[in-house]
């Protein structure tokens, strides 16, 4: 863990030196902040689950970015058209069989490892964007609701209740039946959007029909995702807004928005960050489930859930390797984020803070 700490610390200092170059004196002015970062990084490095989680997330991230670029098989070629044997060909170790992919193939004879590389990108983009769109929406509503109180609070909370009451699945189904046509129409005509989104998901522009399905479950997910954040932020805001430093900020002339974003938000952020990390795991699995149910993109897009769904028909006689392999990938992605979230929660907990501080001081002295 020494290594992790040293690496992260050098990243912090590289950043600090850069800022120093841009505005001299930055390091002095932010010495306490830098110390805070060092502390967090130290605490992180001391947590084995955090480091493992972080490592997994890092690998997933790298694979997500480069996946579609290094995939050695294009996902749009139906290999079974050339060789019927390729359909659900089981995993294969040379030299007993050669010419067949190591981990086996899926329904269309594609190497499932290559397909998973596309899958990483798709899952990653969906989960990250859902959380990063849903969370801010929920946070802002929670801030307003908690701070203003009264009628505004009641209205926002009732709306939140309504959305929370919706079973995400039902909503997704509803959206998935209506939206894809609409979005499809937009993508057909607007080439810029089409290019952007296909690039984002690592797909060809020709797949814009499936893209429309992807975007619609995206949409459905964001709608379902924000209420949780609104609730927990509102709770934290209720206690923070009673603090004297908020009254003092008022007296310093700050407007309501300034107070919300400069004073209240930073003080309610910790639980939100932890929740977001766990949520990315949940979103990944939720998106896969939606695809599994057929609400997402169809062939040839190799969305992990969808491929597993198709494999269901041949399970367990022929497609066990597909289900297992892709299932484990989903497991690992979710696990990585969960472990990271756990570690983050411990790091951000003010109670364990002093203990970490003292340990760091002791180590520095050695």
């Amino acid at each position, binding site marked *: 863990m020494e290594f992790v700490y040293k690496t992260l610390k050098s990243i912090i200092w590289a950043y600090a030196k850069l800022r120093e170059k841009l505005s001299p004196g930055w390091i002095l002015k932010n010495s306490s902040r830098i110390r805070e970062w060092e502390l967090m990084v130290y605490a992180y490095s001391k947590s084995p689950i955090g480091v493992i989680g972080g490592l997994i997330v890092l690998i997933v991230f790298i694979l997500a970015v480069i996946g579609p670029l290094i995939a050695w098989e294009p996902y749009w070629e139906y290999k079974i058209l050339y060789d019927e044997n390729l359909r659900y060909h089981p995993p294969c170790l040379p030299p007993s069989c050669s010419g067949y992919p190591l981990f086996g193939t899926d329904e269309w004879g594609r190497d499932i490892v290559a397909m998973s590389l596309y899958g990483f990108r798709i899952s990653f983009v969906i989960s990250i964007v859902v959380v990063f769109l849903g969370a801010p929406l929920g946070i802002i509503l929670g801030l307003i609701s908690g701070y203003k109180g009264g009628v505004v609070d009641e209205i926002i909370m009732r709306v939140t209740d309504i959305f929370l009451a919706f079973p995400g699945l039902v909503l997704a189904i509803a959206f998935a039946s209506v939206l894809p046509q609409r979005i499809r129409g937009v993508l057909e005509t607007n080439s810029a959007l089409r290019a952007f989104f296909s690039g984002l998901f690592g797909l060809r522009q020709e797949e814009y029909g499936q893209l429309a399905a992807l975007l619609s479950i995206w949409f459905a997910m964001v709608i379902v995702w924000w209420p949780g954040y609104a609730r927990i932020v509102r709770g934290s805001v209720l206690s923070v807004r009673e603090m004297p430093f908020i009254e003092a900020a008022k007296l310093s002339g700050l407007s309501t928005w300034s107070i919300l974003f400069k004073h209240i938000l930073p003080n309610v952020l910790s639980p939100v960050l932890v929740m977001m990390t766990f949520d990315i795991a949940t979103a990944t699995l939720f998106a896969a489930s939606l695809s599994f149910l057929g609400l997402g993109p169809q062939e040839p897009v190799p969305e992990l859930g969808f491929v597993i769904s198709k494999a269901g028909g041949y399970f367990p006689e022929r497609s066990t390797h597909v289900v297992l392999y892709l299932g484990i990938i989903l497991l690992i992605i979710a696990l990585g984020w969960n472990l990271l979230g756990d570690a983050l929660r411990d790091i951000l907990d003010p109670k364990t803070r002093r*203990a970490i501080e*003292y*340990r760091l001081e002791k180590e520095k002295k050695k």
Partner: protein
Amino acid sequence: MMNEITHLPEDIILKVEDLDVRFYTYAGVVHAVSNVSFYVREGETIALVGETGCGKSVTTRAITKLIESPGRIEGGKVLFRRRNGKIVDLLKISDEELREIRGNEIAYVFQDPTSALDPLYTIGYHIHETIIAHKSKISKKETFKQAVNLLKHVLIPSPEVRVKNYPHEMSGGMRQRSVIAIGLSNMPRLLIADEPTTNLDVTVQAQILDLLKKIQEEYKMGLILITHNLGIVAEVADRVYVMYAGKMVEEGPLEQIFYNPQHPYTKLLLRAVPDPTKKIEKLESIPGVVPSLISPPAGCRFQPRCLYAMDICGRQEPPLVEVESEHRAACWLLEKRGGSK
């Protein structure tokens, strides 16, 4: 087990000798209480005075081994004369015997009455609980009768009604009086009150202090009062013990401490308090901060902030030296002056 309990003078009910309490934290070992000694006579009130972190609360909890991990009582004796005349060392007796004494012969009153009371039970039930813990053969009717009596004693109006009240149905002052009533349920020999009036209004405070004095006279009870408020000390205490950074720096009869303080810390403390009956030009403050108890300074712990610090103060800890009868202070200045005996 070899019983080497030393003899305790007739009128003394509690004698603490060389108490040492340490807390083993991740940051290091906190020397919360070091070599603290004091005693309480029957019917007398002693005040344990000091600021935040001086160790006064830890000391009083240590008396009945109420210290939890990571704290540990590392040394010392706490001699207590029980009702039956037997003298025991509270730090060495069995858990059984200690439980017999707590709540029965030694009672506590803490600062916050709200957290001392279980919101789910009536005041009457609290008292009932305390009594039957020590007298198993008593009927509920009997304990409730005693409860009403106790509440009357602590000047709670309409005690027959109040005995059935829940804590939230009472004001702060009444709650604190109830806590005192609970403490008195078994007519203890010694009552330890830790900042009992800090959260209360000044008129209620006056009532409670009056009450404590009255009860003390009636029950011939010893009272240890912990406070940082010198006004309360002046009103109520017979003898005063001044603590600083875990050590006893001065001890003596009330008038000696107020009119003839010897330790520089005591002197500064007295000058920092605004006395409304006097015309004050300026309040004295004490420069610096309380030292860390993890690595306390060598020698006298007050030395870094002391205006009269000499060479020896930074090297060796001053012993308690007698200034007058029962008045002692730990300061090298006294040795220099050749403090008596």
